[in-house]
């Protein structure tokens, strides 16, 4: 049954790819957004559906059904995640200090994100995605759940940041990061460009309704930037409060203050691992990895599942927001990720410690 579903999805995808590639990619392209809790299902924040979507937009707080299909692009088989804290130490990056905490990270967000990336390798959460693969010369090569996916961290206080940075500027920073780290294996590398409290990406600041996004550099979309960079725009999501996850798992003021950072960044990291090409179709070639008919990726399909504005714990809903037990033994708030294998092959959100009883 599972195989049948996948084949059907793939067939539909082939049709739709042709349709999408016939149009102007420049016009239709935008990054792959993670809507905030107020904009779940907002069509303005999703790419065009791949095809005759069999289901409507996801119901807020519930998983988005139908399994994902493989669209022919690469995945990150042995991912390496590079964290860039751009401008966190530059003047005006924060409007407050905390005693005993570095002035360039007064809320501990950078420390939390760094610890999360170091701890996510080898976990059940990351392991839920090893079912996905890329096909190389007819051979399926699955994503590996390696114990160390941390590529490095860079506090870049040399290249000036400013408020309302553009996507192009973020891509340029990703290129600088690739050079800084000496990255040569772009297929398996991704760059998270994290911004400080007072200097964020323009769309996030404008209230467009998203918490973050990821994308893939191509000359059409990011002129002058090295092609083939998978990167994430990671704003200072605490600025959006509960809309981007604050206190969505842990209810205490301080214990839940940073929940959104790992939930949102984890969403983007795992989407990049399974779809580093960000659904791009260039000259008729689909660079995308895994997503569904509605162009929802593994993170989109499970975003904010179980979230009830604090009325009830989200983890009481199977696949709801929960925690990842890191390889350091600590718990990190995360959202679940779509697993085609769960629910006996029908698919469900998994990996956040609150899976359905029947999982793959």
């Amino acid at each position, binding site marked *: 049954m599972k195989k049948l579903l996948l084949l059907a999805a793939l067939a539909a995808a082939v049709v739709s790819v042709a349709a999408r590639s016939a149009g102007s990619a420049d016009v239709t392209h935008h990054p792959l957004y993670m809507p905030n809790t107020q904009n779940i299902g907002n069509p303005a924040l999703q790419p065009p559906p791949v095809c005759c979507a069999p289901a409507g937009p996801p119901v807020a707080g519930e998983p988005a059904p139908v399994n994902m299909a493989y669209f022919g692009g690469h995945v990150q088989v042995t991912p390496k995640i590079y964290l860039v804290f751009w401008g966190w130490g530059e003047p005006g990056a924060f409007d407050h200090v*905390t*005693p*005993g*905490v570095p002035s360039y990270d007064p809320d*501990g967000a950078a*420390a939390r994100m760094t610890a999360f990336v170091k701890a996510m390798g080898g976990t059940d959460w990351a392991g839920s995605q090893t079912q996905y693969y890329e096909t190389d010369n007819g051979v399926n090569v699955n994503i590996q759940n390696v114990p160390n996916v941390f590529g490095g961290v860079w506090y870049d206080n040399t290249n000036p940041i400013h408020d309302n940075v553009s996507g192009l500027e973020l891509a340029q920073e990703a290129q600088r990061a690739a050079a800084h780290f000496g990255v040569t294996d772009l297929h398996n590398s991704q760059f998270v460009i994290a911004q400080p409290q007072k200097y964020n990406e323009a769309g996030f600041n404008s209230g467009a309704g998203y918490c973050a996004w990821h994308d893939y550099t191509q000359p059409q979309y990011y002129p002058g930037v090295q092609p083939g960079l998978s990167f994430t725009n990671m704003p200072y999501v605490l600025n959006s409060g509960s809309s981007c996850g604050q206190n969505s798992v*842990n209810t*205490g*003021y*301080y*214990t*839940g*203050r940073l929940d959104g950072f790992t939930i949102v960044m984890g969403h983007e990291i795992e989407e990049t691992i399974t779809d580093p090409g960000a659904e791009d179709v260039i000259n008729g070639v689909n660079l995308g990895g895994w997503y569904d008919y509605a162009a929802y990726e593994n993170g989109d399909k499970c975003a904010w599942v179980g979230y009830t504005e*604090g*009325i009830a714990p989200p983890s009481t809903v199977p696949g709801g927001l929960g925690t990842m037990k890191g390889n350091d033994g600590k718990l990190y708030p995360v959202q679940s990720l779509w697993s085609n294998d769960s629910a006996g092959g029908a698919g469900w959100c998994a990996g956040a410690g609150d899976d359905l009883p029947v999982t793959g």
Partner: protein
Amino acid sequence: MTRWSLRKLVLVATAAAVAAGAGLANAGSAPVTITTPVSGSTIALHSNPYTAVAGTDSFAAATPGTSRFYLRRDGCGTSNDNPHLSTATGTDGGDGCGIVLNAVVGLGGDVDQGAFVDYPASDGMPLALDASRTATGAIDITGTAVGAVEVDVSLEALVGGQGVTVGSTTTTTVLDPTVSDNPVAFTIQPDASLAGADLQGLDLRVHIHGPALDAGFVGLSGKSWVDMPSFSASVNKSVAISVDDATFAHPVSARLDGSTWSVAIPTPAIGKHTIYAESTQGFATSAAVSTTFTVKR
């Protein structure tokens, strides 16, 4: 059912001044001196495999006291609501702010709209907590409220960058409808594991519920507050020394004894050396001092 309301604006003269102790835990760390080895002295390696290093310190005394934090609010239900704790008081734009509890239930019933308000401290940090004594305070229920109200108060702190529970309590009070203010007193015993902790942040969460009518409005402008048991300075004190490295990359901890400190280190190799020392109290580290001496055979 639920609405935010500025019940009334109460002008209250500035109440008591900031209590002693608030925000003093980070008072600048006192200077440290090195008395041994004497600067310019010579030490013979063959007869002194270890070198005594000693000096004086003058840490600030950690006197028990109380740090008062007032519940404050800049605007009721607005984008400038900003509920917070402050060691300073005054007239609050959000005085009388709250949630209407407009259902009446019988004895034993509970009107609970699930809402709480966090008041994180905007000043007064760090705070050297004295966990052996209780935190006390009052949440003022303002207006012509009727019935029995339950006030849940919980304190959470930021310690070492992590959120930790200080303690919580629930107080039930029968409201007097003939007065405009019903202060509900509370007492919280801090978690013993936080003894001597230097708090980097403090949050007070208030949750009002119970079989009452119109009882969800909190009086501010000096009428609601919490007294935190504290020390005037951190009880966490240390002196570290470093040999030939002003960055203290590999510090050696000294033993404190009143106003002096000492430590024995393996005598360094023959040649000229500099020993650096610095003291730390809470989050404050003193300027480093140094002494230079020569080791001979």
